[in-house]
């Protein structure tokens, strides 16, 4: 069963790349652009982590104000 699913997915994937619709295929075709994307993702993940920490501090502050 699993095998069929995998095959189906692969067929779908290969069709989509063969399709004559114009896509940014070259985008991933060459030149290590993934590195750039990974770099951006790392930085974004970092900023989200930072935002969560700030959020936590703000929540704590809210709680303290309520207690008072």
């Amino acid at each position, binding site marked *: 069963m699993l095998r069929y699913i995998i095959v189906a997915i692969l067929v779908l994937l290969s069709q989509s790349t063969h399709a004559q619709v114009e896509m940014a295929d070259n985008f991933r075709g*060459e*030149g*290590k*652009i993934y*590195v*750039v994307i*990974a*770099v*951006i993702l*790392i*930085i974004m993940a*970092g*900023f989200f982590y*930072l*935002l969560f920490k*700030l959020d936590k*501090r*703000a929540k704590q*502050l809210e709680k*303290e*104000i309520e207690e*008072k």
Partner: protein
Amino acid sequence: MDYLLKKDWWKWFCIALLTYTIVAGLLVPVPRLNILNETIRVLHFHVPMWFGMIFLFMASVIHAVKYLRSGNNNSDAFSSELASIGLYFGVFGILSGMLWARFAWGEFWSNDPKQNAAAISLLIYLAYFVLRGSLQDQQQRSRISAVYNIFAFSLMIPLLFILPRMTDSLHPGNGGNPALSIYDTNSTLKAVFYPAVIGWTLLGFWIASIASRISLTKQKLEDA
């Protein structure tokens, strides 16, 4: 920092610059270079982390000096929040740089003076936070950590000039690597890079201002 807390216009400026950075940074044609290939585009995302870090640390030191001169608790809060956001920028820079280095130089860490200087500046500010953690009395903590902040930052600056003289840098634009002339001549790269630096730095100040707002409110609450 006081000014930044009051005004809002610079946040819109920051949003505009960063939008421009992401769009132009990914789409504008870049010089075609060996090895670097498309990864030359990390110039707009990875390198500004360092600039942002340095600017944030500088602002932190300025507030440390202000604290020592005035004894105003707000300055201390600004100083430590700026330093902590700067530290985050440094960590982002080092992680993204290591990933990039894996593809451009083949190793995560390769004894590059800029990498080492970055690691040292992170160590300094980690030590700064350890120092803050180990001092109980609030006034003493503010004063002594301000002193260490100034002392360590001022010694970091000669380091940035000394280290590159000891070993050749692998970074593009150093010691015979490609791209030295391209940084100087290619105006399209510059046209994205400078706004990117300003944009990311402003984002850092934005987050730092939120953080200091929280800590100032907390201080007020404790005083009341």
